[in-house]
């Protein structure tokens, strides 16, 4: 039996072995504002469920708004989970084991958060199961619904063994055995996850690409999949791992402890650099094809795609150049990548670029008039939409904080923080 050490935090018995954590009081205090934010968001969610979507700023022009952009954004950023998982388990890049746990947690949070928002976003949440029971196989959204729930289950299965590895939980023989067995079959789930996730990242893009009557997003493609299908996969794998790295680094800043070694981060950065560069090449080709093919076919010009400041050209410039070509180049070249400041900045830019992409494809598409006698409309989310999104953010923060405090998610932590 362990002797009680009163110098340690009250919950020290639950900490991963050999690591330091702040006092319980400090931990709880830091959660207070987050919980308050979550409660405010929970109230917003309650209002939405109780009195309907009328409380949001969505309307018949903007049937999709902040929430869908948020979902698409976090799902792209959460792609680190499946892609690093695939590299780690399928291609056996062993080094990635040092960050894969965090990637799984971030992925799980992104996906479960997105599903939470989706429940609010549909008008009839109690009929949500129609998506499985009465599926329309032609709809990209059906593909999304199936893949996203299946992949969320996979992420739970990947997350559960992590939870079981808590120092106290793992003392239970059953939990121990379960965790061990889960680990053995993890490559299988990584494979399934990679398959599911690739597909729905793609079908999220496909959702927009198939809208043949919306020239802003319509794209030709390959078989039933429009180009956006592939662009979404590429952009997600290009930014997802970097997002995981950014989260890890952010956690390091907050906790003041080293969690992931620089070489692991660099490896992730290199992978992202390659993938993001490939994405940018195709995205640029796609943009050119859109300007000179799809738009004139629809009788429209490039200039008609923008409106005022809110939907101005700067968005396209930011997405493609500042948050596109620039970070791709910086991450690709070892010379720049190896300078931490540039490394993190390019990571941030790449993630921002992908989020801008998801935002404009969701909102600008709908803001643009297709009928020649219609006019541009603008959209700004209201408190209910921000609130519900904040709720997901708070939920993610809390889960990450708890996971960090109680679960051995960073195998290198002990080593890196040796004094």
């Amino acid at each position: 039996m362990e002797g009680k050490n009163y110098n340690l935090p009250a919950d020290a018995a639950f900490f991963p072995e050999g690591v330091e954590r702040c006092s319980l009081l400090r931990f709880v205090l830091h959660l207070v504002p987050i919980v308050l934010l979550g409660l405010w968001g929970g109230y917003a969610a309650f209002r939405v469920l109780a009195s309907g979507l009328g409380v949001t700023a969505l309307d018949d022009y903007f049937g999709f708004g902040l929430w869908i952009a948020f979902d698409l954004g976090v799902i792209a950023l959460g792609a680190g989970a499946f892609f690093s998982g695939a590299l780690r388990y399928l291609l056996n890049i062993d080094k990635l084991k040092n960050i894969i746990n965090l990637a799984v947690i971030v992925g799980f949070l992104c996906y479960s958060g997105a599903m939470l928002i989706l429940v609010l976003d549909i008008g009839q949440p109690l009929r949500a199961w129609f998506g499985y029971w009465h599926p329309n196989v032609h709809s990209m959204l059906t593909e999304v619904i199936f893949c996203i729930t299946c992949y969320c289950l996979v992420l739970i299965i990947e997350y559960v063994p992590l939870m079981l590895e808590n120092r106290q939980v793992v003392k239970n023989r059953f939990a121990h055995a379960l965790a061990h067995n889960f680990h053995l079959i993890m490559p299988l789930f990584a494979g399934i996850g990679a398959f599911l996730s690739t597909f729905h990242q793609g079908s999220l893009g496909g959702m927009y690409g198939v809208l043949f009557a919306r020239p802003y997003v319509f794209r030709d493609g390959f078989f039933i999949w429009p180009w956006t299908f592939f662009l979404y996969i590429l952009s997600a794998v290009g930014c997802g791992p970097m997002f995981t790295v950014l989260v890890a680094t952010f956690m390091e800043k907050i906790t003041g402890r080293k969690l992931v070694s620089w070489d692991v981060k660099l490896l992730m950065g290199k992978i992202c650099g390659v993938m993001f560069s490939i994405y940018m090449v195709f995205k640029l080709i796609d943009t050119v094809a859109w300007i000179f093919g799809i738009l004139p076919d629809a009788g429209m010009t490039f200039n008609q795609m923008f409106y005022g400041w809110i939907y101005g050209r700067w968005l396209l410039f930011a997405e493609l150049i500042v948050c596109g070509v620039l970070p791709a180049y910086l991450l690709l070249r070892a010379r720049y990548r190896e300078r931490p400041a540039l490394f993190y900045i390019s990571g941030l830019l790449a993630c921002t670029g992908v989020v801008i992409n998801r935002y404009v494809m969701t909102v600008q598409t709908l803001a643009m008039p297709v009928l020649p006698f219609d006019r541009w409309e603008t959209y700004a989310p209201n408190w209910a939409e921000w609130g519900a999104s904040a709720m997901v953010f708070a939920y993610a923060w809390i889960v990450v904080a708890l996971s960090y405090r109680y679960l051995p998610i960073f195998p290198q932590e002990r080593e890196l923080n040796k004094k």
Partner: protein
Amino acid sequence: MSATQEFRIKWGMVIDLDKCTGCGSCMVACQAENNVAPAEDGLNRRRALNWLLVYRLSNGKPFPDHDIAYLPRPCMQCGKPSCVSVCPVVATTKDEEGGIVSQVTPRCIGCRYCMASCPYHARYFNWHDPVWPAGMEKTLTPDVSVRPRGVVEKCTFCHHRLMAAKDRAYAEGRDPEKLPDGAYVTSCTEACPNGAISFGDVNNPEHKVHELIKSPYAFRLLERLGTDPQVWYVSRREWVRRLGDNYLNNEPTKG
């Protein structure tokens, strides 16, 4: 993106824009016929629920050369609907003889993907539960179900009137699949004091609309996007026809 289904009967609407003066009679008749709740504040055009909406068109010229036209916009019942293939729960289909795009609100989960897909803004979401002033619910017709909040709805070409016309045909021993011209018309068609709207089976030579759509002045909205609408518009004014679709500067107006 399912293939276009061809039907023997094709219910179509032809609207003469030179005859529409924008009085709104069609919109009122539509709301009353289809149990659309009245709105105390109908001013929010992005939230007001209209199965049929009259747009105001302008030739864009300054005074005194300005010209004006009104364009009633029902659901286009597209031959190749952008909304049908995207619905994840088969709540909207184009599967019935006549080609009317159905909207089954009890199936709809309210994801609004169909609204994002429709360039005509013909689809409307129930942002709130519908409310009638006390007693006014007694004027609901028994023909169209009242939609709760959280589902999408749209013009159905007064589909219940088609069913009523078929029932009458059964009762009279006629073939319900060969309705004579005028046996089935929409509420807006009937209400228009100008007679600007014509309705019938465009595939049937015995129906007036069969000829009307062949007019050199006939056009459809956003034809080049490939939606193949079942609503035609007619105008002798070129600027009106040109507003029916997006044109590059050097392209001639169709129709």
